[in-house]
């Protein structure tokens, strides 16, 4: 019981948001982003081999999971052991409604069944039998209904509940859990049935620290019930397009609020005025809201603000002078706005900035001079801007820069020399048509690169010689059409590669697959629109970590891949053609 007080179950997601803000989004093609989302669930991953000797404990747990049908009950085991068996069963997808019964009355604390197949109300009996031991339950994506929630009534020590994507839970379900007064974290993402009426249940939950109602379209008017939740620190109302200025008023007294997300809502400048008193707010997401630069006036009162997302707000330059007041900001997203170089002048003094997003803004080379003093910048997004080679000289002093996106800009080979001193750079997106082998040659000093996107660049076999300098690459995309098997010879020794996209190089043959067969870390491979045939597939047998394989426009059928999947690539979960 005492342990319950010190649990930090609510921290993960907040950091997740910040982290994503700083280092997410590596490239436009979307394929690299995929690396960030794992298909596996977070749980213990027991593996033999790789030099690490498995503890006897892990071997026993594995053995039990293999023979799970032999066991009728684990209730005689200490609960931390039952917990480990449960986690491993979930992780290895061996848990069924039958094997679940062995966990009745095991006093387990955490049941993470998010996205687990087959979970429905019939599971709730065993879940609730953990009684007062139960601290957190994740049933996101399950078929659980209001009736199922009735079971949780007696699990009064519950701290965290997650019912994301449970579309059969409604106002009635909320009422049933309103007695769980110890709850600190509650999540109901994408629920169409929760309305203001049902939200009156929240008024009881005075210990709530974190509430997530992302994509709940019927909650307008319900936030008045949060007024008394003085411990609330994080409120996610992303993509609730029913939320208006009226809904902001009840939030004005929640002075412990640290993170507020109301992106894609109907909140305007007037609604923002209610946030003035939230003097602990450090994260505010207003992406896609109908605000103008006038809201900066209200927000400048928030001295603790570290993260501000104003992407897609149609902000013009007018009023942007107020940005200069946000001296503590670490993350500022201004992408997809109408701002020009004139706005960047006001960012000059934001010397604490670590991440700046100017995607698709009307900024050019002259504006970048205002960034030269932002020495803490780690992540800079300039995709789809008018930035060209002469602007890059203003970036050459940003020694801490780790991620730079120049895709769809007008930079060319001549400017890349200016980047050669950015030795902290890990991720570089040069998905730019006018970049060629010459440009790549200027970057060979960037040996720390882990992600390099040359999707549309005109790289040929000769250029691939320079890739040999980038031994740490985890992801690489070269899809400009100029590669042949000869060039792939320079890729085959990049042994850390997890993602490789060589699609659109129509001259690549089965030889390419043979060359990369030693890249055993590969998780994702795309060689679409090439001369690969089903005969070449056998070279992929060694790539046991492969989860995604894309060979569209090749002489390969879905059945060819399925056969390979069943015999040699057990981890393959996504493939094309399908």
């Amino acid at each position, binding site marked *: 019981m005492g342990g319950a007080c010190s649990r930090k179950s609510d921290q993960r997601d907040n950091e997740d948001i910040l982290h994503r803000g700083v280092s997410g989004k590596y490239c436009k093609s979307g394929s690299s982003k995929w690396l960030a989302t794992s298909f596996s669930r977070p749980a213990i991953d027991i593996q033999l081999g790789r030099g690490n000797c498995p503890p*006897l*404990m892990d*071997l*026993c747990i594995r*053995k*039990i999971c293999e023979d799970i049908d032999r066991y009728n009950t684990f209730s005689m*085991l200490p609960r931390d*052991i039952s917990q480990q068996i449960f986690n491993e069963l979930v992780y290895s997808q061996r848990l069924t409604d039958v094997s679940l019964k062995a966990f009745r009355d095991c006093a387990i604390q955490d049941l993470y069944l998010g996205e687990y197949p087959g979970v429905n109300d019939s599971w709730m009996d065993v879940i609730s039998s953990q009684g007062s031991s139960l601290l957190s339950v994740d049933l996101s994506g399950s078929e659980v209904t209001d009736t199922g929630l009735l079971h949780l009534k007696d699990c009064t020590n519950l701290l965290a509940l997650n019912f994301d994507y449970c579309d059969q839970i409604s106002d009635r379900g909320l009422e049933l859990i309103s007695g769980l007064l110890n709850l600190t974290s509650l999540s109901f993402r994408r629920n169409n049935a929760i309305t203001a009426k049902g939200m009156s249940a929240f008024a009881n939950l005075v210990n709530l620290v974190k509430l997530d109602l992302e994509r709940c379209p019927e909650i307008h008017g319900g936030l008045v019930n949060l007024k008394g939740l003085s411990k609330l620190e994080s409120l996610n109302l992303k993509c609730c397009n029913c939320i208006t200025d009226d809904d902001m008023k009840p939030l004005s007294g929640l002075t412990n609020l640290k993170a507020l997300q109301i992106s894609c809502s109907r909140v305007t400048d007037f609604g923002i005025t209610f946030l003035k008193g939230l003097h602990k707010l450090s994260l505010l997401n207003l992406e896609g809201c109908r605000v103008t630069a006038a809201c900066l006036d209200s927000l400048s009162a928030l001295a603790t603000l570290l993260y501000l997302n104003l992407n897609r707000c149609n902000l013009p330059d007018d009023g942007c002078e107020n940005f200069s007041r946000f001296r503590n900001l670490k993350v500022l997203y201004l992408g997809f706005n109408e701002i020009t170089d004139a706005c960047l002048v006001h960012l000059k003094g934001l010397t604490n900035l670590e991440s700046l997003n100017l995607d698709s803004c009307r900024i050019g080379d002259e504006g970048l001079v205002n960034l030269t003093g932002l020495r803490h910048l780690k992540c800079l997004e300039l995709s789809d801007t008018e930035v060209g080679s002469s602007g890059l000289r203003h970036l050459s002093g940003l020694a801490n820069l780790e991620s730079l996106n120049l895709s769809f800009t007008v930079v060319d080979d001549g400017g890349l020399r200016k980047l050669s001193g950015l030795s902290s750079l890990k991720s570089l997106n040069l998905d730019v048509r006018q970049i060629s082998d010459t440009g790549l040659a200027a970057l060979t000093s960037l040996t720390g690169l882990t992600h390099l996107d040359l999707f549309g660049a005109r790289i040929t076999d000769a250029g691939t010689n320079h890739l040999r300098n980038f031994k740490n690459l985890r992801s690489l995309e070269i899809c400009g059409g100029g590669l042949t098997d000869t060039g792939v010879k320079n890729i085959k020794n990049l042994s850390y590669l997890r993602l490789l996209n060589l699609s659109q190089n129509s001259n690549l043959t089965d030889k390419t697959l043979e060359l990369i067969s030693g890249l055993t870390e590969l998780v994702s491979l795309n060689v679409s629109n090439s001369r690969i045939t089903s005969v070449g597939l056998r070279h992929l047998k060694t790539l046991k970590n492969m989860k995604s394989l894309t060979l569209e426009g090749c002489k390969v059928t879905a059945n060819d891949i399925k056969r390979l999947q069943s015999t040699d690539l057990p981890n393959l979960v996504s493939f094309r053609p399908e």
Partner: protein
Amino acid sequence: MKKEDMVKLISAEGFEFVIDKDAAMVSQTIYNMLTSPGSFAETQHGEVTFPEISTTILEKICKYFYWHLQFASGKETEFPIEPELTLELMMAANYLHT
């Protein structure tokens, strides 16, 4: 073999297993007992009694210790576990931090 390089593990039934200290110290619990600066009786006599662990299980544990050493030196084989021993073995492994 010097006596101080060996250690005696005694099961609930009183059965004695004399094994290499190096092997026994695969267990974090035994390691702590044998190396703690305080004067544990175990440290002095090189003997540890496990009133909760049966002979069958302790024998299996000793086999694991040696398997572990082999594994660490690069001989990566499978460690066989009989299904009927698993639960009891797991409880012991938990106690021994192994």
